[in-house]
């Protein structure tokens, strides 16, 4: 099967609507298809990967730990919009650590998070074959 570049565009807060959770379900299934997968977090989507999420008070499942498993599925390109972070008073320090082991570098643990400007993200999106927007 041909390999294509798939990007999953996460635009919504993790709770409040089901888009973020069901987007993550697609990403995990997609990993089995051995495509070139990347994720982008823009607008309120940046809240999906903020550290220290606690859903005890709202009766929802806290699925934020799942993002940490993405490295095990060879998904290690998580682009985060710098502008979306700063618009919300957030910075890279507020994002939870999401890492992968680099097989080309003696399995060194590296961050999957890449903070990018909207101009850079636009360029990366233009390089994709398929953009799925959630």
């Amino acid at each position: 099967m041909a390999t294509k570049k798939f990007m999953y565009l996460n635009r919504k807060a993790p709770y409040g609507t089901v888009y973020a959770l069901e987007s993550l379900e697609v990403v995990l299934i997609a990993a089995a298809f051995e495509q070139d997968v990347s994720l982008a977090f823009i607008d309120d989507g940046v809240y999906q990967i903020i550290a220290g999420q606690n859903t005890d008070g709202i009766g929802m499942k806290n699925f934020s730990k799942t993002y940490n498993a993405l490295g095990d599925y060879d998904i290690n390109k998580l682009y985060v919009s710098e502008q979306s972070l700063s618009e919300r008073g957030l910075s890279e320090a507020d994002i939870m650590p999401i890492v992968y082991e680099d097989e080309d570098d003696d399995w060194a643990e590296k961050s999957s998070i890449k903070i990018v400007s909207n101009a850079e993200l636009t360029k990366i999106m233009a390089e994709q074959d398929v953009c799925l927007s959630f």
Partner: protein
Amino acid sequence: MKIAIQINEGPYQHQASDSAYQFAKAAIAKGHEIFRVFFYHDGVNNASAFTVPPQDDRNVINQWAELGIKNADGEPELVICIAAALRRGMLDESEAGKNGITGNNINPAFRISGLGQLIEAGIQAERLVVFGD
């Protein structure tokens, strides 16, 4: 051109399904192939056989059914996501049986399948067009 469509919103609440239908109809009229329509999130509600709109309104479900999007084996290529469908009470006969529930509500022009069908559509089609918020 070989085109796949993803619909993320339910009927009537949102225009996504209507817009996708108009797009699909226009694309087919221009000689393009609609390889598959994949219904996700609340989009799975577009397959409900129990939908009864007022008589002076369009029937979103029947519109899709009448478009008759099928593969070479004659199976429907209007596909609703199984995980999204089950948690929203959309069940075909088989899934109802497995879950001990009486009754089923999937219009026969649609079929239930897994998320892999969405990824496969992205791989096989030349364009994947997403409709939703």
